[in-house]
């Protein structure tokens, strides 16, 4: 009898085991009986909370779904701005399932499928938002607003999937190679302008300083010139006064002395040839016989 008892015991244990199921924290479950989702008394889909739950063995199928906030991180996509420039935009979407029954109906509980549906909706929203903005507006102006807009436009679509979009964020905005080259060129030009401005300002300051120095030097020299001329003039005047005072005593004698000095100075060289006439006063005694 023992083996029979054992079998009965095992069957009971198995039935018991099959009629309970565990829903983990961070998950929710629905139960399908012959493919029909179980409802509660109010007629809504019955959502099984984390913990130990009971079902009918064999007939009921448990479908668990993630109740956490999920991340949809699609690869960067190319968007066109209002000025027809291309941008590589990497965005992510935070979403979670709020209506588990609806979600299950729309996607068969397949998270990947939900994400691909969501992805195209988000991208459409973002695309229309990017298309009405310039790069500048996207990058620095209204990125917050842009995200809110995208969030709002996807919200209604999302509710059809039984999900809630918590957040849409632009993670990276990268410029395509050809656009970034333009930007680099512009940055280089800007830096060059800055560099030139610095150098020119330096030269300007240097020129001002040099000119100031030259001016100071010129003034110093000119003042010295004035002083020296004044001094020289005073000297000349003093000398003239001395001459005038002395020679004024006897102008005739001065005239004699000065003339004699002048003769001496004028004829002092062997190369000076004097053609003399014996009639000269100097030779008066030479011709004394004739006289």
């Amino acid at each position, binding site marked *: *009898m*023992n083996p029979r008892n054992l079998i009965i015991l095992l069957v009971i244990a198995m039935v018991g085991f099959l009629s309970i199921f*565990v829903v*983990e*924290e*961070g998950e929710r479950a629905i139960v399908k009986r012959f493919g029909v989702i179980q409802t509660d008394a109010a007629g809504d889909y019955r959502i099984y909370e984390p*913990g*130990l739950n009971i079902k009918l063995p064999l007939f009921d199928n448990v479908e668990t779904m993630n109740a956490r*906030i999920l*991340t949809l991180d699609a690869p960067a996509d190319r968007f066109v701005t209002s000025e027809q420039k291309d941008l590589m935009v990497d965005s*992510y979407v935070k979403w979670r399932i709020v209506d588990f029954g609806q979600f299950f109906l729309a996607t068969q509980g397949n998270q990947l499928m939900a994400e691909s549906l969501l992805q195209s909706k988000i991208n459409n929203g973002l695309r229309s938002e990017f298309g009405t903005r310039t790069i500048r507006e996207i*990058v*620095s102006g209204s*990125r917050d607003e842009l995200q809110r807009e995208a969030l709002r436009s996807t919200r209604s679509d999302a509710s059809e999937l039984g999900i809630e979009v*918590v*957040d849409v*964020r632009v993670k990276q905005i990268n410029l395509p190679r050809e656009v*970034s080259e333009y*930007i*680099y060129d*512009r940055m*280089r030009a*800007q830096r*060059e302008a800055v*560099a030139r401005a*610095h*150098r020119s300002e*330096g*030269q300007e300051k240097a020129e001002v*300083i040099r000119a100031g120095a030259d001016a*100071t*030097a010129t003034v*110093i*020299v000119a003042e010295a010139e004035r002083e020296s*001329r004044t001094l020289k003039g005073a*000297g000349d005047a*003093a*000398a003239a006064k*001395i001459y005038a005072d*002395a*020679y004024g*005593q*006897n102008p005739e*004698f*001065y005239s*004699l*002395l000065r003339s*004699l000095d002048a003769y*001496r*100075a004028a*004829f*002092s060289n*062997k*190369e*000076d*040839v*004097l*053609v*003399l*006439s014996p009639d000269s006063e100097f030779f008066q005694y030479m011709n004394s016989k004739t006289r």
Partner: protein
Amino acid sequence: MAWNEPGNQGKDPWGNRGGKDQGPPDLDEVFRKFTSRFGGGGNGGGSGNLSKMGVALVLVGAVIVWGLSGLYKVEEAERGVVLQFGQYHDLVGPGLKWKPTFVQTVYPINIQRVNRLNASGVMLTQDENVVTVQMEVQYRIEDPRKYLFSVTNPDQSLSEALDSALRYVVGHTTMDNILTVGREQVRSDTWAELDGIIEPYDMGIRVVDVAFKEARPPEEVKPAFDDAIAAQEDEERYVQEATAYTRQVEPQARGRAERMLREASAYKERVVLEAEGEVARFTSLLPQYEAAPEVTRERLYLETMEQVYSSTSKVMVDNKEGGSMFYLPLDKIIQGQSQNTQMAPAQQQSAPNRSVRTDTTNDRAGRSTTRQGRN
């Protein structure tokens, strides 16, 4: 929760088979009841008892193993999140703990460790420039339950939020600010923005610090930036050079001015002294002249003429008999004079290969005679 806490007696691994426990010890009893009810006494006998003993032994062993497997340790820095049948049950502190295996699951989470995350990349700034920025965020898990169950992959979510926050802030700051004075502003703005982003995610993560690691222009334009910095140095250098020039020019000018003044005062003294010297002869001769004008005049005249005639060449012509046809080779006379006075140059002149130098020598001779004549 420890196994021996009150209200948890049922989970005592050693004994305590009483009560309404549904654990294996009761199964043993149920088993016995089953065997008695189905009247197994007849064929059972000693062999039945033996198998019962064996089954009981196996069951006791299983219970011991099960009990031991429930022991676990929570480290000092950790908190254990206890799930009972998948449902959040409790949060336990550090120490040696026990859980009923299969009923409870424990996830130890370190709440003390400061984790780091980096975000870096090339980003657009407000003025449509591009900078390479690297930012590090340090965070701690504050609420282990939320960390585990409110978001899938919270660390990844934080990283994405940081990327978004950093780019948002960089996009609202000008490049000059990011590279120079606005770094602290960028850091605090990023922190605030990051907190704002992760707040609705409710991840149980607290950002402890946000550190600005580096911000620099992209490699492609680095030479231009370096040159701009070099230009600032150049500007400074030009000014320094000009200052040096000033330091050179002004003293030189002052020196020159001083020289001019000294020369002028020397000139002044010289002309006065010369005048006095010249006048001195006159004033000392004047009394003599006034005393005997005729004689003095005559004497002075003759002295002068003597000097003049003795130092010059002269030709006396008695014009009254010469008439108009009279040839006087003045140039020959002059040449003769100079050859006579300068014999040495004349000898050199005969050497034909030095004709060029001769000219200069002649010149010099001429000048020297001039000087002689003045003396």
